[in-house]
């Protein structure tokens, strides 16, 4: 078919990328899954099929909690199926972090966009301020926020705790990221700081994408400004909220730099992503590390794959 002459060059031009992605994304993921199902628990590679890594991760009952192991979590093997206490703690942390971060960034970003929607003096300046944290690395942010959220007690208080004291808000003092119950939520604060601006930009574009005539028609029909928002603008924003949830959700699952920068390898701030790193580098438990990585991937896919399909399909409809 002579038509190959037409689209052949295009395919050829894209083929290196296809190849690279096939190998380095899909191929390596496959390898990762294979490792997770092996018994490669120490430095020497073995090739047996072994699901012990997964069995250790999935709780088969209520695990022990409350024991802090400072420093490196040991991936001690045992012959009996047992739950991995570190893993359970990680999951709790991840859940808490995700809820706090996603809700926080969403609400803050949407609120800022709402305030800016009608246009204010100095909008450019405000937008620039809210967006600049995106240019800062999570590590650098971690250095500052680690200090800001310093839980040192009494006279050695510093950071936010000190500020609260000075402002007469001493009752707000708390242990931040070292707090037993809400530590993970505290970690969400720097993450919100970094990403609310981006969510704001998304929502602002959404708000401004509502045709002015729609709002005017509603006003003519006697709707108050609030009603106009509720019945005309907000419905328009559903796709934006969906995008925002997906983006925030997937960042939350993957987040690594920030946790490490603030909490290092401590169990009290550990999440599955950090645990994986520790297992590979310190404990050399490759199968288990790979297992965690695979589970992260599954978690993200559940979120992303339907969303991607939905986006491309609606694109085609247009």
């Amino acid at each position, binding site marked *: 078919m002579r038509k190959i002459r037409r689209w052949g060059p295009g395919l050829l031009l*894209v083929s290196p990328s296809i190849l690279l992605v096939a190998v380095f994304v899909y191929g390596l993921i496959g390898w990762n899954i294979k490792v997770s199902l092996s018994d490669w628990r120490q430095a020497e590679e073995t090739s047996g099929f072994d699901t012990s890594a997964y069995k250790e991760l999935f709780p088969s009952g209520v695990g022990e909690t409350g024991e802090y192991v400072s420093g490196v979590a040991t991936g001690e093997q045992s012959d009996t199926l047992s739950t991995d206490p570190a893993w359970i703690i990680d999951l709790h942390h991840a859940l808490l972090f995700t809820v706090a971060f996603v809700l926080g960034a969403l609400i803050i970003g949407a609120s800022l966009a709402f305030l800016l929607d009608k246009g204010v003096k100095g909008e450019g300046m405000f937008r620039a301020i809210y967006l*600049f944290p995106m240019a800062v690395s999570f590590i650098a942010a971690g250095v500052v926020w680690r200090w800001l959220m310093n839980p040192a007690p009494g006279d050695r208080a510093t950071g936010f705790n000190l500020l609260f004291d000075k402002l007469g808000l001493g009752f707000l003092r708390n242990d931040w990221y070292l707090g037993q119950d809400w530590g993970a939520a505290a970690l969400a604060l720097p993450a919100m700081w970094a990403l609310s601006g981006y969510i704001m930009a998304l929502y602002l574009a959404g708000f401004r994408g509502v045709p002015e005539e729609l709002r005017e028609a509603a006003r003519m029909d006697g709707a108050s400004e609030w009603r106009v928002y509720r019945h005309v603008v907000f419905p328009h924003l559903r796709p934006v909220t969906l995008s925002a949830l997906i983006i925030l959700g997937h960042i939350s699952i993957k987040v690594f730099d920030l946790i490490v920068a603030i909490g290092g390898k401590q169990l009290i701030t550990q999440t599955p992503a950090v645990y994986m790193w520790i297992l590979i580098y310190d404990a050399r438990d490759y199968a288990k590390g790979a297992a965690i*990585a695979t589970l992260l991937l599954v978690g993200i896919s559940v979120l992303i794959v339907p969303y991607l*399909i939905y986006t491309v399909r609606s694109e085609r409809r247009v």
Partner: protein
Amino acid sequence: MTTVALDRTSRRRRRRRVSSRVLKYAALAFAAVVVLLPVYVLLVASFKGAGEADPSRAWALPESWSLDAWREAWNGEQYGLLPFLKNSLKLVIPATLISTVIGSLNGFVLSRWRFPGADLVFLFLLFGLFIPYQAVMIPLTQIFIDVDFPEGIPRLAFAHIVYGIPITTLIFRSYYATIPEDLIEAARMDRAGMLRTYWSVVLPISAPAFVVTAIWQFTSIWNDFLFAVFIVTDPGQWPVTVALNNTTGSLVTPYNVQMAAALIASLPTLIVYILLGRYFMRGLMAGALKG
């Protein structure tokens, strides 16, 4: 009677409008202060001398402004970031250039010089954007070892180029979708082939997409930690983010040096943001990164 009533309601409405506007500005200003708080802390701490390490004075301005921390964080024997800044620069510039060009070519083909299955290929590539990179780091490093790929920054650059394919392709594809199809058809009728059309017709009008992509890649690659910490084993080759986390910004370092270091490490991306930020924002607001 009615004029008085109208006057009262309009005054009330005006008062309500004024007070709601005041509230609005107050809220925005408060948010701005909160966002800028860490910057204040960074600056104030970085200009404090060694003697002002007292935690209770943390929020106060320095008694005597000192550049000691800056000197130490920049070039100091123990904590100097300079060599690592150079590493980062050696990493970011080639990686950004290459991945941007690849994204442009891909985006062009997948939107305006399509082939059967182009949309599927796009989805195929796009998925790479969402994977947890932890999942591929182990085998990636293994491959590097197996093929004896040059160690350190080259490996890191390669990784960023490959894993940058999805996002750069996405940005360019969205942008090129706004080029009218008949422009490409006119080029085809003028007997231009694919590369010729790209070079003479598409590339000259691609500036906005190049700016957005380059800024995004520059920032992502400069700020990356995950890839670097897995791939670069020789401390001498660390980019600045790893150095910041492991030494200069670590807990044992005096905190004024930590803060100065954090600022230095963020300087290039902040400068890019300040100088070129409006183009970046324009791209964001137009939804270039919606997905």
